[in-house]
């Protein structure tokens, strides 16, 4: 059994790693990681905008985003992928690669979820921070940029990281629209071998486990660190010397 798995990895590691590249599109693990990283990088700023829109006083900003959040929470991601698969080419009028379709869907879907995390972080700060920032002469944007968001995001780092983990797991759903990712490569290997499906899919599960477990591990470590810091057990420079955003980057 284990020998079978080692043989599969030895024979197909390149396909699992980069897919058909350079004779075809980039695929495999590389594509899974690129897709996750891109969707995280795009969903993160969008989710902050969504959270600010949901907290805004203007109903014109608040209502559409609230509706979007409720909608995405009630509909399976698979359904949204099928929607984009059919709508994105129709709207753009061009032949869109399945990678782009998947990226678009993931960004919209996860921004809605992540915006709830960011919003919770902002609400948990209490209104005093905003009042104080405004009293010091910051405008709304300036107060958000320098006072509210650095604190809110810092407090929510563990939840944000666990959203990143589920985003990485969600990239597997690209399988239904033939995004050439790791899952796709594994099923190609399975189609070529035909005799060892259990071994192939176990390898797939192990690879995903390693990626996501590593992310979860760092999320948990950060969570403990933040709890200790809040309890005042950890020595960190005070806010007057180092800006909160710098603390965030140091902790990461």
């Amino acid at each position, binding site marked *: 059994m284990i020998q079978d798995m080692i043989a599969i990895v030895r024979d197909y590691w390149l396909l699992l790693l980069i897919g058909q590249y350079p004779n075809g599109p980039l695929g495999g693990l590389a594509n899974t990681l690129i897709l996750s990283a891109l969707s995280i990088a795009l969903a993160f700023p969008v989710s902050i905008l969504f959270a600010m829109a949901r907290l805004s006083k203007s109903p014109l900003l608040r209502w559409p985003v609230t509706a979007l959040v409720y*909608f995405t*929470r*009630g*509909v*399976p*991601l*698979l*359904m949204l992928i*099928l*929607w984009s698969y*059919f709508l994105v080419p129709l709207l753009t009028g061009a032949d869109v690669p399945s990678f782009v379709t998947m990226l678009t869907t993931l960004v919209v879907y996860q921004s809605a979820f992540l915006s709830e995390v960011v919003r919770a972080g902002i609400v948990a700060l209490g209104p005093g921070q905003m009042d104080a920032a405004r009293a010091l002469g910051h405008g709304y944007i300036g107060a958000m940029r320098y006072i509210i968001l650095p604190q809110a995001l810092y407090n929510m780092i563990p939840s944000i990281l666990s959203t990143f*983990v589920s985003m990485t*797991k*969600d990239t*597997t*759903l690209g*399988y*239904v629209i033939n995004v050439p990712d790791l*899952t796709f490569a594994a*099923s190609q290997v*399975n189609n070529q071998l035909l005799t060892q*499906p*259990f*071994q*192939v*899919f*176990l390898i*797939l*599960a192990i690879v*995903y*486990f390693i990626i*996501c*477990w590593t992310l*979860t591990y760092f999320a948990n470590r950060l969570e403990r660190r933040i709890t200790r810091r809040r309890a005042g057990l950890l020595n960190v420079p005070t806010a007057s010397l180092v800006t909160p955003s710098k603390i965030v980057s140091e902790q990461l």
Partner: protein
Amino acid sequence: MSGFDLSAILGNPEYAAMLLHGIEMTFIIYAGSWLLAMTLALMLLGLRLSPFRFGDPLVAAYVSYHRNVPTLVQLMLWYFGIFTLMPSGIANWLASHNAESIFAVIGLGLCQAAYFSEDLRSGVRSVSDGQMQAARALGHGYVSAMRFVIMPQGVRNALPPLINHSVSLFKNSSLAIIIGASELTHAVKEIENLSFRTFEIYLIGTVLYLFFSLVIMSIGAYLSMRADPARSARA
């Protein structure tokens, strides 16, 4: 084929029957995997709270596996992998009894059990130690103290995440399409292939999922209100 026309699908008895069958299978898969998940979650919780010293790492490993491997991959491993390793007697029996749906229930249920057991554990952990001591002082044994004092409070604390995860289990039931179970998403795809009315059928499917998710959320909100009216009023 012209314009937007819902009646082209809903008015067609064949398509309507396919949709109804899809809804039925989605609910069978959902109910089956929910019950499996909850039963397993309670057993995992029991194992974790028990004095058995390997209980804790065993449950932790179970939870870690199921939380860090995508559900889709777990379903594939069950249906394409473990299914083929089974003795032919069992495999044949499964194959003639809708194996796709059975494996969807097993895969989704085992995966969700990890989330449910974590929800229950944090719920039970937030019941203060004094409750157990007080129950024991009143003459309850360990089992009866758990049954009448700790668990009711623990489950009540765990209700909000349990409801969230119940909704996501419902949405995840759509993944069963990957292994070929004939649930709602499958019905939507089939009707799309037959009718070419892509927009209409996706709209119907989406509205159905949205509707049932909202129903599950409302039932959950009602249960939280019943369990703890004071807290719901504050929230």
